[in-house]
């Protein structure tokens, strides 16, 4: 008989409760008819309606989505290149330093990243006159910089599991290295690229710290808007907005996870088949 680890389960339950009850209550209260965010006044969707007619929220949402789309796409391109380089070019000089530098932003405090990017943009503006004003461009560049790391990590992991010989087989059949990349490597790692993109997208969409360091006048992303509104007290429309964000982010993360695990299952099935035959 195995004893259930009661202590561990209890701790886990408390942990989950601590994390999810606030989110759940926020979601429930987003359907609250009362103007007071903490008093239940019956079911209503009026805060969603008021949210959708709010110009300020619309503009912030548009800006956030634009930044997230561009930065996720750029981060995926650059991150994939770094991931492939790390996995494939085993012996290049300074590989250890490169790999360390690529992953350092993962554990670097966001405040530090934010400040250093801000300093960089200010210096750049002093020397070259660009960027004259911080805003859309600087936020996007900052987001590319720190979300690229996540793509690199995901792509590197997928590349190290991939059978090197399928790339060699393509080369053997007459393809030059860039054709091999296009025909074999990229299609095979495409689930990692998609999930890397989704990760970068969600990271960009909900970032507050780095965005607030690199933003300028007039460029208010959705998280920045929420942050500034909440400072004046929580209103029910913020609950509604936050609920929408939680649902979107949750779906993205779930999709990324599903894509990765499906690719993994397929790979395992293939491996099993490769070593056992049945007519």
């Amino acid at each position, binding site marked *: 008989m195995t004893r259930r680890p009661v202590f561990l389960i209890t701790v886990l339950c408390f942990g989950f409760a601590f994390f999810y009850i606030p989110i759940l209550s926020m979601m429930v209260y987003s359907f609250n008819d009362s103007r007071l965010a903490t008093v239940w006044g019956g079911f209503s969707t009026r805060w969603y309606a008021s949210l959708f007619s709010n110009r300020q929220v619309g503009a912030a949402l548009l800006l956030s989505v634009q930044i997230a789309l561009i930065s996720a796409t750029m981060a995926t391109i650059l991150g994939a290149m770094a991931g492939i380089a790390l996995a494939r070019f085993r012996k290049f000089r300074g590989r250890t330093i490169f790999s360390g530098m690529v992953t350092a932003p993962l554990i670097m405090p966001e405040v530090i990243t934010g400040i250093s990017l801000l300093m960089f943009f200010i210096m750049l503006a002093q020397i070259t006159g660009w960027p004259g004003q911080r805003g859309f461009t600087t936020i996007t560049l900052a987001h590319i910089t720190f979300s690229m790391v996540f793509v690199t990590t995901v792509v590197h992991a997928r590349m190290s599991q991939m*059978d090197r*010989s*399928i790339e*060699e*087989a*393509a*080369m*053997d*059949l*007459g*393809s*030059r290295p860039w054709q091999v990349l296009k*025909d*074999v490597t990229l*299609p*095979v790692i*495409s689930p990692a690229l998609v999930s890397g993109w989704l990760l970068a997208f969600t990271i960009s969409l909900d970032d507050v710290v780095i965005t607030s360091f690199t933003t300028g006048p007039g460029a208010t992303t959705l998280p920045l808007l929420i942050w500034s509104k909440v400072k004046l007290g929580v209103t029910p429309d913020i609950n509604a907005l936050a609920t929408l964000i939680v649902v979107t982010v949750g779906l993205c993360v779930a999709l990324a996870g599903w894509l990765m695990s499906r690719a993994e299952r*397929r*790979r395992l*099935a*293939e491996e099993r*088949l*490769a*070593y*056992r*035959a*049945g*007519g």
Partner: protein
Amino acid sequence: MSGEAEPFIRIENVAKSFGSFQAVKDVNLTVARGEIFSLLGGSGCGKTTLLRMLAGFEDPTAGRIFIDGQDMSGIPPWERPVHMMFQSYAIFPHMSVEKNIAYGLKHERISAADRAARVAEMLDLVQLTPFAKRKPHQISGGQRQRVALARALARQPKLLLLDEPLAALDKKLREHTQFELMSIQARTGVTFIVVTHDQEEAMTLSDRIAVMDRGEVRQVGTPTEIYEYPASRFVAGFIGAISTFPARVIRLTGDLAEVDIPAMDGTFAARATPGLTEGQEITVALRPEKVAIAKTCPDAVNVVEGQVKDLAYFGKDSLYRVTLPGGDLIAVHAVNARRGPDTARPADWDDKVWLSFEPASAIILTD
């Protein structure tokens, strides 16, 4: 194999080191056009490394490789007239069977119709036509092996390299596939170089075999030459079962050598090999099936007495282990040619028996 003409493949003093480790040491080989040539050896002896140098994935540390008279130094894999079937098959997982086979053809300047015809021909060759639209994870291991073969043959290479083509298949399928490979080779006329660690596979499949050991080629020859005339104790022991005994040459008369074998407590006649000298310390090796076993003393040149220690009865034949006068054991293989309750096998446990062998059957090894 004519010795005059330039051989189809010439491997000249080829060596390969990984850091300080020598995976392949000074290999010299020639392969004729249309031959099935095997590289046989235990795991880690450098077979795959040699194959990868032929395909262009590794550059030799020293030496040169010629294919059809052309020096391959510096020629990348995608420009070599060579295709490889990988040990893992390396099927493209995101392409259908058909697309896998067609992949190499996209680099050839042929019409779409010709390309489709070539793919259809290849599918037919490996009997995969009904599976053309399937994805690799929807077919069995044996079928994947045939996809890999068809894909490599589709571009009509001059040379096909096969790395352990049958190792991932189960025993029954392996035997069947072996003959299929041979028949496909005969029909296409492509030169095959096959890597294998399985000696039976090499014996059945090959026109010639190179036996490799720790990066070196120990002997090259036809399966018969390798089996009947091994050049060293390593090759003798690697291919088939054999019993070996230390011995000494007493006298040389014509093509016969009189040898003293302490394990058999006597002197025996053996076919002499060139360069043998009187008094030389040698090894005498005997294949189990070349030794006759009887309960009565036979009328033969070489006879030795022994006692059956062990026997394995397989029905059609039996394998004996017989204790010799010096205490050593010798393996003897006998066909159970007669039928009857007592006569089913020539001898039983603990029986006193006489063993005999022809002078030509005794292999003299000098290494």
